[in-house]
């Protein structure tokens, strides 16, 4: 059917295949194309420091998608995401670490696909080990037990100095080498930031599409059934324990991937950074972005990552806020943290569906414009 015939009738489907397509309306196809195009043009227009922030946001989005699979789609609240991020980060750093170092363990495998996959699998395995224990628990008991993981993890990272380098010292992040090109240093044709940005974007697209396909498949429907009413799900034949384990494993896999790359952007891993605050940050991403949506996870991750960057501009606008950390009183950092806390509250009270909900409202308004219904 020609595009012309479908114009103005976005929800007219003439075949099952059309109905089931990933981008099932022309508007979705066009706008996705536009976003991808803009994202590909950005590295050649923005400054390098902004690109790194965006790339960090993209990688964080992969982690947020992972958390959304277990918390949003399967309804199993996990405050332990930082633990799995750490496993990913350290697997990657150890695999690509310097084998001659006397201080740290390292195997010198710098090939990006190898350590990326390995860190995902290591974290996924950890998730699978934890899953049978947590599958027995529900609701807030689960949230606190997963929080316990973070604290136990923190203790391990603090004391296993050969792995992490110890608090305050840390170790260098993984070396991202693809086809013999090191992406973490400036090259002849592209700068470090441009290369990392493109890498992060490509990976986000891959893992985003994978997750989108997972959640609209049989597995995704099973997860939603477990979330909405686990007893009813069991009655209609969903193996609840099995799907909880699947959710934890997939979520941890995503966390491992995100963790391994997240620290490549900074170039450095500090063992005390994998704390409760990091877990809360990811929870905030999916809540502000939109629970049980892939696009929401991406929006939320970008929002939370860009927030510090935005508040840093505040002293220029509001003179009573101090830009330096050493002088007392109201500093940017205080404002940033308070704002972050308040944003979580405000979003949950006024727009529980998050940024995705706002987008849906805008979309629905224009869908029937100029009529209100």
């Amino acid at each position, binding site marked *: 059917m020609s595009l012309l015939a479908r114009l103005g009738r976005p929800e007219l489907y003439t075949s099952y295949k059309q109905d089931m397509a990933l981008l099932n309306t022309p508007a979705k196809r066009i706008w996705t194309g536009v976003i991808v195009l803009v994202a590909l043009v950005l590295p050649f227009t923005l400054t390098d420091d902004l690109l790194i922030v965006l790339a960090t946001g993209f990688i964080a989005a992969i982690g947020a998608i992972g958390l959304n699979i277990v918390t949003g789609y399967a309804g199993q609240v996990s405050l332990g995401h930082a633990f799995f991020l750490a496993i990913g980060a350290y697997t990657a750093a150890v695999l690509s670490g310097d084998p001659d170092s006397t201080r740290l363990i390292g195997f010198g495998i710098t090939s990006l696909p190898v350590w990326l996959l390995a860190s995902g699998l290591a974290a996924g395995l950890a998730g699978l080990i934890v899953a049978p*224990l947590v599958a027995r628990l529900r609701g807030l008991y689960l949230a606190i037990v997963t929080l*316990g993981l973070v604290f136990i993890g923190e203790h391990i990272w603090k004391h296993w100095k050969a792995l992490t380098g110890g608090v305050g010292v840390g170790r260098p992040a993984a070396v991202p080498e693809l086809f013999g090109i090191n992406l973490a240093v400036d090259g002849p044709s592209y700068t470090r930031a441009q290369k990392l940005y493109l890498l992060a974007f490509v990976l986000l697209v891959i893992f985003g599409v994978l997750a989108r396909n997972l959640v609209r498949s049989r597995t995704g429907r099973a997860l939603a059934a477990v979330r909405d009413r686990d007893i009813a799900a069991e009655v209609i034949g969903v193996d609840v324990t099995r799907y909880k384990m699947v959710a934890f494993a997939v979520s941890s896999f995503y966390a491992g991937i995100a963790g391994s790359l997240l620290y490549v952007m900074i170039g450095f891993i500090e063992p005390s950074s994998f704390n409760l605050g990091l877990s809360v940050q990811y929870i905030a991403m999916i809540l502000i972005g939109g629970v049980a949506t892939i696009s929401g996870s991406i929006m939320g991750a970008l929002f939370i990552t860009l927030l510090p960057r935005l508040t840093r501009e505040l002293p220029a606008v509001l003179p009573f806020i101090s830009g330096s950390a050493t002088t007392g009183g109201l500093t940017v950092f*205080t404002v940033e*943290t308070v704002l972050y*806390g308040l944003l*979580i509250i405000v979003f949950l009270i006024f727009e*529980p569906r998050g940024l995705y909900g706002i987008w849906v409202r805008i979309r629905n308004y224009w869908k029937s414009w100029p009529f209100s219904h």
Partner: protein
Amino acid sequence: MNEFVSTLVKGLGNGSIYALLALGFVIIYKSMRVISFAQPAFMMVGATLVSYLVLEMNFFVAVLVALALTALLGIGVERVALRPMIGKPVFVVAIITLGIDIAIRTVTNVYIGLEIRQMGDPWGLEQVEIFGVPVDQRHLATLITTMVVVTALFAFFRYSRMGLAMRAASYDQEVALAQGVSVGWVFALSWAIAGVLAALAGVFLSVGVGLEQTLWLTALKALPVIILGGLDSLGGAVVAGLSIGVFEALVGTYGADVAPFLGGDFFLVVPYLLMLLVLLVRPYGLFGAREVERI
């Protein structure tokens, strides 16, 4: 032997702080079915208020004033941020309390500053001899205060009219409403009590050693305590708080000799490991009510 007894008293002292914090969590949980992650913030606010008020007045008066102010803060927070969320999924409400915690604690940190603040308490790090064993006065003071507060609290729930109303509301909100209980008041009061308990815990935590920004992490120890005792059991919170405190102190004293490879501060993760072990056997804690589901 002396070492053992003084470790025990230290454990009971710390344990009663955990018990106070855990009671706050449990009281809020029983009234709203929500875990309030804002407790660390109330704890810091209470301790900070005392450290400032004590410059003007007697320590004990300062504590009372600080407790009253923290209770008011608790009521205010409940009214502004929690009341609109009634009927929403518990997880969402729990995350709201996380947001509250971040916001309040950041502001409090500005007032604490980077230095350690002194509490101006009468005990300091002085020791007293009981049956020939030197024991920190502050641990004894904590233990005794906690026992008094816990007894008063249990008597309140058991014998007073409002206590009865709170028990009714926690059992079934709608039925309680139908019987004329103001559930709104129950919510407000439980946040006020939780605020007072947290503030008291904060004061005793910083007595002697002083108040600093990182102290809030101790409040999170109440989380394994409430899971261990069962989310909805007041008695469980006290028992689990004391036992985790004692266990932690024992590991802190003897752990380094038994298993040095675990690191000198291994006692910090002991509560969480204990929680995981107990949950393997009892998914609703030691005294928690088993959830009964209707299909």
